[in-house]
């Protein structure tokens, strides 16, 4: 199996994505998107998909970033300025999806092809986790476990088959970390430039990456100085290439600043700070997406609620939706001294993301499945969970914990791609008498309300939805169990 693990991982991942891919064939019109495919359990169930899709349609048809002709389908996540409508979201993901949209349009499946941008990045992240884990010295099956755990036992799965930015961010962050580590290798200058370039890309994709990516460029900057002990002296080498690497970031940010200047009047004014339009008849000038600046949007008073929400709350908590990533705790403190920077990097990204979003006024991510804001940094936690598995490779009890947690996580995670990502947060649900946890997904599953393209197109008349769910779950759990129980000893310390 060792020999075939990589092709297996590729085929297995693509197969599972194919089974859970959301939507339907055809090239949906703006009217269909806004009025026929916008309810819970459908491809355009949230304004996230609709607003990003609106940018694509506008760029293709009107050659404009303003979505004036498609604004209605993007509400309420759009804003208005100087007589034009704009999506609140950065345009990068939509721009990346354009080739797929064009291809999809030609083949009569525009939505499916466009949404596959997330799938592609999710798949790439899975591969990257595998490679990263291998480079850390993890056993091949443990590396595969970490990769599968992220792809198919976290709420990332639900967002891998729709049009969000989380999976693109996840890939860029992990790639950035992969590039800058290990710190003591050669080609420091080139890697630093690459890291700063990826930083720019990550900011283009999602604004908060401005902060979440910081540890990576921090590590890249650490590469600048190399201190070695030699007899009675310390030798300090400074690589000036690394010092000048941020120039590429500044140059690309200038481009972004120019984009903001052209459209919103100031280089530092992002699209999510313009006045919100809840519907086209009502421009609510007082309610931008995130306040006027980062300082206003991030408040330490929110930390208590934010941390609780992200970790243990029933409506969003990782403990409830993706507990497999909490197995990272087994891996902390295990890596050898020479790999301590790897450990630091793997912990720094989730910690930064958690603290950042916990200070945000809406840690719930609107109507969502689990803590969607954390998806970007779940790969790092899955890798550390893999480290933990390697550490306790001989410990049967720990392995049982792993398989139980993995099975539960996979069972919950699979609900989202098959049904919906739209679960109201408790703070809203309690006022409108709705549930605020995955019981909503379970009910949809029991009623056979699946949005899986493959199921609806091929199997709907053959097997019940619940059976379809359990077949896929069985595949994931079987793979996970195999990967968990294959390693028999502590390979790192052998």
């Amino acid at each position, binding site marked *: 199996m060792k020999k075939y693990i990589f092709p297996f991982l590729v085929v297995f991942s693509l197969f599972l994505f194919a089974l859970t891919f959301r939507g339907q064939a055809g090239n949906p019109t703006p009217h269909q998107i806004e009025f026929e495919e916008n309810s819970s359990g459908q491809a355009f169930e949230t304004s996230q998909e609709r607003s990003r899709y609106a940018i694509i349609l506008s760029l293709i048809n009107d050659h404009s970033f303003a979505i004036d002709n498609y604004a209605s389908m993007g509400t309420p996540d759009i804003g208005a300025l100087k007589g034009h409508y704009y999506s609140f979201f950065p345009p990068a993901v939509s721009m990346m999806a354009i080739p797929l949209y064009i291809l999809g349009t030609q083949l009569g499946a525009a939505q499916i092809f466009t949404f596959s941008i997330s799938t592609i990045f999710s798949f790439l992240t899975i591969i990257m986790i595998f490679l990263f884990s291998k480079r850390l010295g993890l056993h091949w099956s443990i590396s595969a476990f970490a990769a599968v755990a992220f792809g198919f036992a976290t709420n990332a799965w639900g967002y891998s088959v729709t049009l969000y930015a989380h999976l693109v961010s996840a890939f860029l962050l992990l790639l950035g970390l992969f590039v800058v580590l290990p710190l003591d290798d050669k080609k420091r200058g080139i890697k630093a430039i690459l890291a700063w370039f990826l930083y720019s890309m990550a900011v283009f994709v999602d604004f908060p990456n401005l902060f979440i990516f910081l540890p990576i460029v921090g590590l890249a900057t650490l590469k600048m100085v190399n201190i070695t002990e030699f007899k009675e002296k310390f030798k300090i080498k400074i690589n000036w290439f690394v010092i000048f690497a941020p120039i590429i970031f500044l140059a690309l940010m200038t481009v972004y600043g120019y984009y903001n200047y052209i459209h919103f009047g100031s280089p530092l004014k992002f699209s999510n700070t313009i006045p919100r339009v809840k519907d086209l008849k009502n421009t609510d000038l007082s309610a931008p997406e995130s306040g006027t600046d980062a300082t206003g949007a991030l408040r330490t008073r929110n930390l208590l609620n934010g941390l609780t929400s992200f970790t243990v709350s029933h409506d969003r908590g990782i403990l409830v939706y993706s507990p497999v990533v909490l197995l990272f705790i087994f891996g902390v403190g295990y890596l050898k001294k020479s790999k301590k920077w790897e450990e630091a990097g793997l912990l720094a990204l989730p910690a930064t993301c958690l603290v950042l979003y*916990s200070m945000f006024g809406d840690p719930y991510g609107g109507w969502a499945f689990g803590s969607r804001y954390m998806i970007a940094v779940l790969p790092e936690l899955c890798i550390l969970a893999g480290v933990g598995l390697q550490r306790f490779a001989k410990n049967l009890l720990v392995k049982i914990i792993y398989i139980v947690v993995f099975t539960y996580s996979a069972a919950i995670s699979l609900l989202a791609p098959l049904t919906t990502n739209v679960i109201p947060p408790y703070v809203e649900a309690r006022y409108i008498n709705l549930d605020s946890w995955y019981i909503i997904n379970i009910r949809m599953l029991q009623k056979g309300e699946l949005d899986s393209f493959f199921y609806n197109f091929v199997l709907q008349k053959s097997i019940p939805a619940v059976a379809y769910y359990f077949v896929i779950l069985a595949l994931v759990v079987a793979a996970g169990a195999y990967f968990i129980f294959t390693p028999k000893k502590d390979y790192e310390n052998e």
Partner: protein
Amino acid sequence: MKMNKFLSEFEFNKSTIGTINKFVQKHTFEALLFLLVSAATFYYLFFLKNGLGLAYNDARSHLDIGRRVVEGLKPGAAQLGSVWLPLPHILMVLTIWNDFMWHSGLSGAIVSMISFVATGLLIYKFLEELGVGILGRVVGVVVFAANLNVLYLQSTAMTELLLIATMTASIYQLLKWFKYDDTLHLIKAAFFVMLATLIRYDGWFLFVFSSGLIALQVFRKKGYKAAEGTVILFCTLAGLGIALWFLWNLLIFKDPLYFIFGPYAAATQQSQLSEAGNLPTKGDLLFSIKVYLFALAYNSNAFISVLSVIGAAFLWLDKKIKTDIKIAATALFVPLVFNVIALYAGQSVLFIQGLSGNTWFNVRYGILMMPSIAIFIGYLTQKIDKLKIIVIALLAFVLYFSFANADAVTIDDARVGSSQKNVTEVSGWLAANAKNKPGFVLISAASHDAIIFSSGLPMSKFIHEGTGAYWISATTAPDRWARWIVMRTNDNNDQTFKLVSKTAAYKNGDYTLVNHYPFADIYEIKPQFLKTINTKPTLGYQK
């Protein structure tokens, strides 16, 4: 220095690095002292200038208590009263005679500021005793000092910082006694516990807890006899303040338990709250724990609280730390345990907005764990190798936003919570209309000390509960003594109304209601009675 295309190479002698290292080791303490003093001064001036320095109703009351000892119709030590423990007011007496020191609040704030600096340095020394390096020690001090709630409270005449300083000092000395077994440290610990017992009742719990720890330690090492002797030695000094407080209550109020059962005691107020259903923590342990933990998290900020829990776990799970040290360090949890017990027993009231009611009240109690939190995080920084960079960077990130957003729950409590009392309308009226006219103002200090303070009038202008014969005379025949009366009409919790409402002058309508305000009403005697009213303190010296 060599230089390639993009590569520069420098060389340093190890001895040079060693010299720098020694310099840093030697002068960090002094540098921190300078920075702490600078921060204390800057933030005092900052809060004085923006008017928040005296926002707490209690801060004004503390200042008035100190002032009454040296100025008023009946000055003297008895004015220290029994509502609050006396040490903060005794320390104020040294400077409160000066009008500027009184009305600027500096008389009380300076005690808090010194306590702030001392606590910062104690955290540094505490971490040093735990074997933490320079970086960890500095991080610990920064976590404590760069907290806006701490900085605010150290700029006011509140008692939290003084309590924090004395408790931290006693726990630090206790740690050293556990570590070195030197009796001098035990005596120092007892001294600071004694001081703490004269500030707040949290100190009393520290006294009991420390005594228990000492008994346990000596019993473990040397047996019962030695334990008995050591505990008696410790308690003799540490318990002196408590004994003196009982004695004080007996001498002044004829009841050693007056501070517990007296009409102005906290317990009395809490029982009123309880009867009104406003004491939800009473009898509910889990809710008491939750409320205090929320207060703690809001004061320190939740991220820092979480880090401190991890730091505490590191400390107690560290096999290199001796059991003796671990036992001593349990005293760091005294504020947590005491406050939970006090809330559960209904002896304390603490409102968290959104959790218990829709306002803040006494949320500052959560700040008492701040030195412990700082110590745990300092220790964590020492223990996590390269991960310390993440912790320090995230701390900087969070602290930046806490300052940028001016996020201080204690300020909210003082400004808009139940701990505030905006009496500017009443005090403003008095300042404008009573300042330059002869005559006394009859008022209950227990209910309206903030008005007395904010009016800016001399203390000798007021007849209140602590003025002996003046109070008795004025509440019996107000038309003989009180040109103005400030009271809450129809509220028998206001002692002035309770007594004055029974007098003939009030019933006969000798006073005109000048105005009705949210916190109190102002009455003025009718002009025809002005001729018969006393405007000079004719009763002379009173015992």
